[in-house]
């Protein structure tokens, strides 16, 4: 058997081991699945939104920023490997979103509809700040959404700096998307049975 040299390599991985409970380990794939379905439903309804971070939001709210960040990360890696390879690099954005939601939720910024409004803006800002450089590196500043790119093209055509144009393109889209996702997550979370919330809270 190969048991020997397997043990040798164990130490290499333990250095970047993140402590995960079994509850979080099963929550994360579920959250990724929800991201995937939400995105598919948004496309099916021809919404001008992605909604692909709904599961990440809920994972952060239920099990904290780490769970959300990992959900977001794995989501983009899997999505990138199976459907759209370039979206892999946006894993960094998803990590940012997961952390932002986790912290905001913990601080009580998902308690009522008014506060969710503020949270959505902050999360959209975080997402845009991380995504813009990636858009510039990989897509020359475009986002791939037609009407966002129309804004981008107009601004570039008027000799506005590519970074500012790209930032605007991304932020407009992100703001709309994160508003929709934040309110959906807020409404859904309110309706989760208490025992479910408690289970993930106790098993963090």
């Amino acid at each position, binding site marked *: 058997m190969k048991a020997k040299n397997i043990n040798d390599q164990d130490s290499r991985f333990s250095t970047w081991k993140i402590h995960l409970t079994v509850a979080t380990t099963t929550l994360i794939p579920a959250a990724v699945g929800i991201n995937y379905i939400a995105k598919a439903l948004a496309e099916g309804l021809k919404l001008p939104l992605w909604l692909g971070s709904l599961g990440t939001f809920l994972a952060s709210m239920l099990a904290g920023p780490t769970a959300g960040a990992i959900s977001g990360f794995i989501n983009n890696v899997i999505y990138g490997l199976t459907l759209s390879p370039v979206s892999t690099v946006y894993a960094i954005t998803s990590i940012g979103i997961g952390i932002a939601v986790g912290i905001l939720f913990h601080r009580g910024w998902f308690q009522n509809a008014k506060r969710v409004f503020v949270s959505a803006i902050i999360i959209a800002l975080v997402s845009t700040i991380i995504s813009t450089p990636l858009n510039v590196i990989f897509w020359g500043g475009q986002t791939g959404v037609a009407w966002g790119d129309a804004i981008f093209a107009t601004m570039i055509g008027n000799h506005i700096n590519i970074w500012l144009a790209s930032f605007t393109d991304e932020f407009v889209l992100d703001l709309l998307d994160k508003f929709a996702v934040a309110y959906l997550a807020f409404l859904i979370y*309110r*309706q989760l*049975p*208490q*025992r479910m919330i408690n289970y993930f809270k106790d098993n963090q």
Partner: protein
Amino acid sequence: MSTIQISNLHYQYPTSDFQLAIDQLSIADSLVAIVGQNGAGKSTLFKLLTGLVQPQKGAVKINQRNLATLTPEERLRTIGIVFQDPSSQLFNPTVEKEVAWSLSQLESDAELVQATVKKALASVGLTKLKDQNPFDLSLPEKKLLTIATVLAINPQIYLFDEPMMSLDWPSQRLVTDLMQYLAQTGHQVIAITHDMDWAAATFSKMVALAAGNVVFEGTPTNFFSCPEPVKKAGLLPPRIMTIAQEVFNDHHVYLTPQDYAEKYPAHQ
């Protein structure tokens, strides 16, 4: 009372070999059980009876009208559907709103909605829980809630998929009584089930399916008096018949222990 008429019905799933094929079936009784093994075609027939899935050939007609031609409103008023798994259709914040949501699609008078919801909740015994989150209820309570959402609309026909599953004894009795009440007040109740004891005791007509075909239609007494279709459908007779056969070597048809007690003097 309505009549459901099925003629030359054919349905096949795109991804499997299974076919449902029914030449002629007419359902005019008020309490009808559709029975069969897993995979006999019960769920497929259920889907076709909802009117939400169209057959490749033939049609399901209710009082001479093709189900496929009903508008959504007409469909809701004609057929009420109670699914096997109640958790797939609940989404409102409270039990009361859950029931009101269904009705408010057809009825805009808020006062009427409220009064009807109250009545529907009372008839399934959920009045006390009206302000609870539906997802905090127990499984039998969730199932009663989905029944209440249909009761509020008061359709002509009630379609149940495995109604006894995941219910405890008191709620089984409650639902059975409710079905009998509905049948007495001019509704038609159709239930898909593999609970033979319950089917024998409750229904006046049975339709047995096997491998996508109807192998029997008639009264429970007739069904269980001919062992051939029962066996073909992979079903067991009511337990009281097994007891009579195994303990007393008595091969008469009995639907319930009460039935046995009544016939006992004559059979001695």
